[in-house]
């Protein structure tokens, strides 16, 4: 590794080269990954162009007030985005895992600078820089070349802050989440937050409609004096003649950067020391019978019972599954309620909720990775496997669907619709299952078996995620006849909706599960290979 040549002085180039080399090697013999990278380039390019255009508009129209508002608020949003998105959705690119450098004789300073440089060498940082270049254009239009140069220095500092903040925060979280329990808890918390983002956004939009612009301008100016907004307002201060503000804001930027890198460096130290294993603590309770512990009192003492019991436990104990249940509950309740509150028809929304519920099973075999080998080795028949998984999911989903129908009926002030809506929900859930079960057998893919909750799913997962969208669409299409029927029949549907919907859902489920079961009988080893991580 070229890193050992760093004795001459702290050089960051070996790190950058290492990162690029790993990126290129990752493509070798993996067309899917190359395609994904190309898609990433297109997306980043789009973001860069769109951002540039938006930030350049105030300059083109020559509106200084709009420029002050847009640059400071927009820039702050960018930093906030860099802070929050890696935690919630994307994870950080850990291709240069700090712990791999633990044994090399590198000073912490060299390591941090190298990792920081490597983090800057990436599409997100480049496209952010390109997007904010629109700010330079605006400032140039308003205040000439000198101001534009100052703004350029500002956006470079801003991008550095963006990257530093995302690294420092994810590293701090990952270190804090060393134990499995705290990690599990965090994933669930994040799921709640992520699910609440939608409602929050709507609330903000509603606020924006009523708010007065001077108030926003005041907020923007305050933000301009915080690390969030300071880098983006440097050039504007020159334009407005507040030259004294420039060195102060530069100081803010530098202090922030140094502080973030220090913090990162401190958490990195702890991360590199590695996790202390704490698996020996034994919680010993009174010993019930093993089957009793697994099955509880009600489930049958059979293969089916054992499978259902294991699945229900996994929906609760496995964090990814629990997170998806929580997200679904929040979205499932919030969407129809907000629609009916704003006076729309809850019916179509109910359909969406049913489909959303079923989609959670799209990669049901991927959740446990190759633990599925136990079922293959035991020779579980495909239909038993499929039925048990659907049954366990239904244990959680059916009460939720009932709740959704009840809440929507009450909130929209039309309780007489509850039965009919529940019928529609059951029909879509059944149809969704009927579609998703075969897809889950054919389109299984491996999820990362990572210790970091923020690790990226590597490669092919994303492409197969499109299957999920396909299932959603398919479900919506499959239930269109029922929707039309409900609409045409009007009040008659209120009476027959529940039995008809339930029957439709059951029929769809039975067809789908038969197909899925037969496929699974033929392809169980292939499914196992597909969900094994690292393939």
């Amino acid at each position, binding site marked *: 590794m070229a890193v050992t040549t760093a004795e001459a002085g702290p050089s960051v180039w070996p790190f950058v080269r290492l990162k690029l080399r790993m990126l290129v090697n990752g493509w070798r013999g993996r067309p899917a990954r190359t395609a994904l990278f190309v898609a990433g380039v297109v997306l980043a390019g789009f973001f860069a162009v769109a951002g540039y255009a938006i930030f350049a508009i105030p300059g083109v129209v020559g509106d200084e007030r709009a420029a002050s508002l847009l640059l400071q608020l927009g820039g702050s949003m960018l930093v906030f985005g860099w802070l929050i998105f890696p935690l919630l959705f994307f994870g950080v690119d850990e291709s240069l895992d700090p712990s791999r450098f633990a044994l090399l004789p590198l000073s912490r300073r060299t390591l941090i600078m190298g990792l920081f440089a490597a983090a800057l060498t990436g599409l997100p940082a480049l496209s952010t820089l390109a997007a904010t270049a629109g700010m330079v254009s605006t400032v140039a239009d308003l205040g000439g070349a000198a101001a534009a140069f100052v703004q350029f220095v500002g956006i470079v500092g801003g991008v550095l802050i963006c990257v530093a903040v995302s690294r420092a925060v994810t590293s701090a979280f990952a270190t804090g989440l060393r134990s499995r329990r705290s990690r599990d808890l965090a994933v669930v918390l994040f799921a709640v937050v992520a699910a609440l983002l939608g409602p929050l956004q709507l609330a903000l939009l509603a606020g924006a409609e009523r708010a007065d612009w001077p108030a926003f301008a005041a907020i923007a100016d305050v933000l301009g004096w915080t690390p969030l907004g300071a880098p983006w307002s440097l050039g504007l201060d020159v334009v407005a003649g507040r030259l004294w503000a420039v060195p102060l804001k530069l100081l803010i930027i530098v202090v922030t950067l140094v502080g973030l890198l220090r913090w990162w460096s401190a958490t990195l130290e702890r991360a590199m020391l590695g996790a202390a294993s704490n698996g020996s603590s034994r919680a*010993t309770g009174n010993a019930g*019978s093993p089957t*009793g512990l697994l099955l509880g009192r009600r489930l049958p003492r059979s293969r089916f019972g*054992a*499978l259902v019991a294991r699945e229900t436990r996994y929906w609760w104990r496995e964090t990814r599954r629990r997170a998806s249940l929580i997200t679904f509950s929040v979205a499932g309740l919030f969407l129809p309620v907000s629609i009916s509150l704003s006076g729309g028809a809850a019916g179509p929304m109910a359909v969406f909720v049913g489909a959303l519920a079923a989609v959670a099973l799209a990669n049901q075999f991927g959740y446990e990775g*190759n633990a599925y080998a*136990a079922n293959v*080795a*035991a020779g579980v028949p495909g239909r038993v496997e499929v039925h048990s998984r659907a049954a366990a999911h239904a244990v959680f989903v059916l009460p939720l669907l009932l709740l959704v129908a009840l809440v929507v009926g009450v909130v929209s002030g039309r309780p007489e619709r509850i039965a009919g809506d529940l019928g529609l929900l059951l029909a879509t859930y059944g149809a969704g299952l009927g579609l998703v079960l075969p897809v889950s057998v054919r389109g299984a893919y491996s999820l990362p078996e990572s210790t970091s909750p923020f690790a990226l799913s590597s490669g092919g997962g994303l492409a197969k995620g499109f299957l999920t969208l396909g299932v959603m669409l398919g479900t919506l299409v499959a239930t269109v006849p029922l929707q039309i029927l409900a609409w045409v029949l009007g009040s008659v549907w209120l009476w027959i909706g529940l039995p008809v919907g339930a029957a439709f859902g059951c029929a769809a489920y039975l067809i789908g599960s038969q197909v899925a079961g037969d496929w699974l009988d033929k392809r169980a080893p292939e499914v196992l290979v597909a969900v094994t991580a690292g393939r």
Partner: protein
Amino acid sequence: MTVPVQREGDQIPAMALRGLVKRFDTKLAVSGVSLDVPAGSFYGLLGPNGAGKTTTLSMAVGLLRPDAGHAFLLGYDVWADPSAAKARLGVLPDGVRLFDRLTGPELLAYHGLLRGMDATTVDQRARELLDVLELGAGNRTLVVDYSAGMRKKIGLACALLHAPRLLVLDEPFEAVDPVSAARIRDILQRYVAGGGTVIFSSHVMEVVERLCSHVAILSDGVLRLHGTLGAVRGDRSLEEVFVQVVGGRVSTGSELAWL
């Protein structure tokens, strides 16, 4: 079934592999392995890392579909009649997760019921296994929080629970502490004495030499040598034979002189 397998008395091998081939992308992982494991034998499958041990065993037990060839367990074709073959088989795969969000007792109950055993038998045997392997019948720790050695032991317990006639174990002694390893050896030896067949993979010569009646040496996906321990070893140590067969270098003394 293209290859006829004799089904008379003790003549049926516990495991019979015929020309197994597996290719990953461009690499030929296993090329044409044929092997007979006699019933009642303690069979060691030796090989350096990446030799294809895990791949071969996975194909033999029905977890990985071979590109060509056949595998018979106790006379049943694994890939033509999987349920009959799998019912008589206990597997401890290596590098495979368990359903580790269950507690130990729950996991054992799950495996027992999955094998179609009745609940009373499952409870009784599970308690006994947890006790013997010192995992604790009342241990409420999730398997995901177990240490590596404990995980091996609970995996072994899962493989033993339904009293199979054939045990296929991939690296059963890896990461297991000496005390537990001794106990596992003891259990396996009693199992073989009782008429069961064990085939396990390892790259630890001492363990194989101490336990096995038969050995096979695999390298680069090809079976280099197999037979009874005595026949394979001759008058040399197993390690010498292994290094020679696998084609490793023997130190001449002149390399790394600066060390």
